């Protein structure tokens, strides 16, 4: 089916005093075609199209008419630049843009361009175009023991701009530049990068505030699992920030095939930062959380200290040892045992805390306590050893 070119550039070869008077005369129009198109996709929300055309000009004032239909070109963003000739070529023409006129009720504009002589000029027209959008997706294939994965990053270009682009340069602001044709209403997915042997850290976490309970009456906590990738060179990444996008995660099944094990939104991850992907809930790690002690100690009048011990009974039914990350919000603990006073909690770690290594200071804050528990694999007879850990918090100066 023949398709109309919707964005046109026309040059009137005769000189006119005003664009509007031109329409009343017999005129000859040349239609310079696109010589080169680049689509710049590096802005988070806007798409910049840059196209180059060779425009024949006559000596004097020329009208260069740019019009479009059924596309969302933002006319206020249109830039018209005359490109210098490549090195070594004689500068044949001096070309200046005198003004731009905008006709009423039309998607068009007319540049008045003065040329020192007759000849061709290479011009670049840049504009923001709506409905030409990009997104990123990832496919991660973990190996059988979940120690490394292959991360493939794709850019997905959706062209609902109602304009076709022939062989066009596409650049996302990082990574390689692609030369592709993009048709109307076409979605094009292109592999940008494939990262092999990316080390992955699998984490098991409990956090009553953030992830809640699997079985509240029995005080069983949800144990979400995450893959953590570090975006640096040591971890076979670190070429560019990882863009926000959906990550589909597969795992090699040991029989030459892969199984889909879940998907998550990968957040924008700058260089040296970590991407954390939720890969489901661990069923083989059971954590029961109870408040073991809640004791108020008056200091004076209505002023109290309070001692709270949170007990974790943990069983690892997996056939391998793991480390469990335990996070607690101290404010949530105070609210749980007393109610919300509206004030931040002043606290310190009590001596009854059993976690080896104490607080993970790199992840803990004034409110969030992060601790780690190393858990052995289940025994040969299939039974899991129950590990009991206690978190002792002394809440101070409450009333």
């Amino acid at each position, binding site marked *: 089916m023949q398709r109309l070119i919707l964005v046109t550039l026309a040059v009137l070869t005769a000189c006119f005093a005003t664009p509007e008077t031109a329409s009343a005369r017999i005129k000859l129009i040349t239609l310079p075609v696109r010589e080169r198109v680049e689509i710049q996709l590096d802005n988070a929300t806007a798409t910049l199209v840059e196209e180059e055309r060779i425009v024949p000009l006559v000596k004097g004032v020329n009208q260069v008419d740019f019009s479009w239909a059924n596309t969302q070109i933002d006319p206020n963003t249109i830039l018209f630049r005359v490109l210098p000739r490549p090195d070594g070529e004689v500068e044949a023409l001096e070309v200046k843009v005198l*003004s731009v006129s*905008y006709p009423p009720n039309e998607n068009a504009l007319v540049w008045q361009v003065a040329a020192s002589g007759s000849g061709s000029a290479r011009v670049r027209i840049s504009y923001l175009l709506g409905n030409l959008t990009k997104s990123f997706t990832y496919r991660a294939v973990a190996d059988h023991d979940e120690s490394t994965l292959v991360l493939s990053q794709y850019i997905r270009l959706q062209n609902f701009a109602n304009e076709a682009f022939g062989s066009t340069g596409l650049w996302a602001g990082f990574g390689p530049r692609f030369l592709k044709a993009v048709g109307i209403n076409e979605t094009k997915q292109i592999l940008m990068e494939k990262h092999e042997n990316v080390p992955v850290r699998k984490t098991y976490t409990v956090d009553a505030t953030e992830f809640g309970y699997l079985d509240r009456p029995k005080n069983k906590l949800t144990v979400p699992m995450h893959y953590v990738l570090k975006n640096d060179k040591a971890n076979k990444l670190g070429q560019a920030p990882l863009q926000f996008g959906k990550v589909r995660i597969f795992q090699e099944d040991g029989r030459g095939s892969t199984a889909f094990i879940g998907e998550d939104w990968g957040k924008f991850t700058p260089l040296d930062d970590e991407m954390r992907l939720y890969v489901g809930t661990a069923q083989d790690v059971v954590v029961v959380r109870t408040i073991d002690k809640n004791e108020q100690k008056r200091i*004076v009048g209505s002023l109290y200290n309070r001692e709270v011990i949170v007990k974790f009974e943990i069983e690892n039914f997996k056939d391998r040892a793991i480390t469990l990350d335990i996070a607690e919000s101290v404010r949530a603990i105070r609210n749980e045992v007393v109610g919300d006073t509206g004030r931040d909690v002043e606290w310190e770690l009590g001596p009854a805390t059993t976690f080896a290594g104490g607080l993970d200071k790199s992840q803990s804050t*004034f409110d969030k306590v992060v601790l780690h528990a190393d858990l052995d694999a289940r025994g040969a007879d299939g039974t899991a050893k129950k590990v009991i850990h206690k978190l002792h918090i002394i809440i101070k100066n409450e009333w």
Partner: protein
Amino acid sequence: MRHISFCLMLLLVVSEISPRLRAENVDLSTVPDRDTVQLTIYNSEDLTLVRETRKVTFKEGANPLQFSWANTLIDPTSVQLRFLTQPDKLEVLDTTFPHDKPQMLYWNVHSEIDGEATIEITYFTSGIRWSADYVMVADQQETKVGFEGFVRVFNESGEEYENAQVRLVVGKINLVEKIAQLARVSMDEVDKLKRDERLHFQVESARRALSMPASNASGFGGGQPAPKEVIKEGLSEYFIYTIEGTETIANGWSKRMRSLTPVEVPLKIQYRYREPEYGMQLVRLYLMRNDVASKLGTTPLPDGVVRVFRDNGRDGLSFLTEQAIKYIAIGDKIELNLGPDPEVIFELVKLKVWRDNIWMRINGADVYRRVDELGVDVQVRSTVAGWDEHTIFGQRVRNFSGKPIDLEVRRSFDGHAVVRSLLTVSEHDYRTMQYTASVPSGEQVDLRYELVVHLDRNAKQSNVTLEKAEVTP
């Protein structure tokens, strides 16, 4: 299409002129063309002063002149007639607005001569406006920007002004009524408006605008056509941009012309956290100055939209932002907010909270004791009446961009607050502290400060004071 017409009426029976009489008789009229027309367009209001000159031949005695402006947006209260030649021989005896013919008036001119004179008609119209816009293209290293300014004139007035000299007024004027409103009511209705307001409106607006003499229109000149120069002159509190030569802007069309030739302006980048201005995010700014050192500073920059691009180093541009700027005086700063930088992570982390200096009120009486005061006994019926809340904050900044960054942070605190830190902290206002820091590329810094808020009985002020002190969580 022309809607404004001017006629010299040669009536078959002329003694006392009555509009009614004219309307019912066969009239003969001549239609003198415009010789020159000048548009002075204000951007702060929907207001344009039109000044046109025509050559008219008068006969001795009474000369009726008709001026009409059907389907345009002219304010009838503003139309004035002046005689540029033979002013001592010509006089307007009266002006009549016929009630049955809106958008028309008659001048009854008494002439002592038989011959030609140049007249000037001025009036306000709405529907013509102008706006400024700017294009900036930063170099790849972001050390300078190519800065270009444009003005765009829009003509939606219903009238076509051919070969008009165009002058653009930068600055805010005062109008008590909208011209568009005045243009849409008949003269009868206008007369109902408060006389004082009309007078003020006419006198003040006209005084400012008319004080500039009309200059002769100049053409392109001989050689190669070049972009027209925009001459910028100060006038009272305003700036007037006069576009070289004349322009024809047809009704419904708009035209954009360059007002500032491209210059390379040095650029500084700063990251800022100012919640009232930029919201709860660290934003990246381009900072420039409208001064001579920056190759600008010849004119204020009128309100307008700035579109910022950057050379992407691959023979193309990156679009950075589009932003409206307010009027920038000569010498003033140009600040462009490029929004958050995804490669700079900015987190405020509370590292520690504690309370001290706790005072108890004993038995509800006007007796207070400090909790850690020696010799205080446990008082069962005492309540907390005042305390100091200490919070240690770490402003964690991770710079994943490829360049070192400078940042400036402002934070405001309610109540009686003290900020302790070894950072370079200063007071921005009585409740806002400000500090600056640099973060090398690829590094993370924790900019620590301790906030002490005196609460309830302990609060003696409502301000923030700064103390130099080491902060250890």
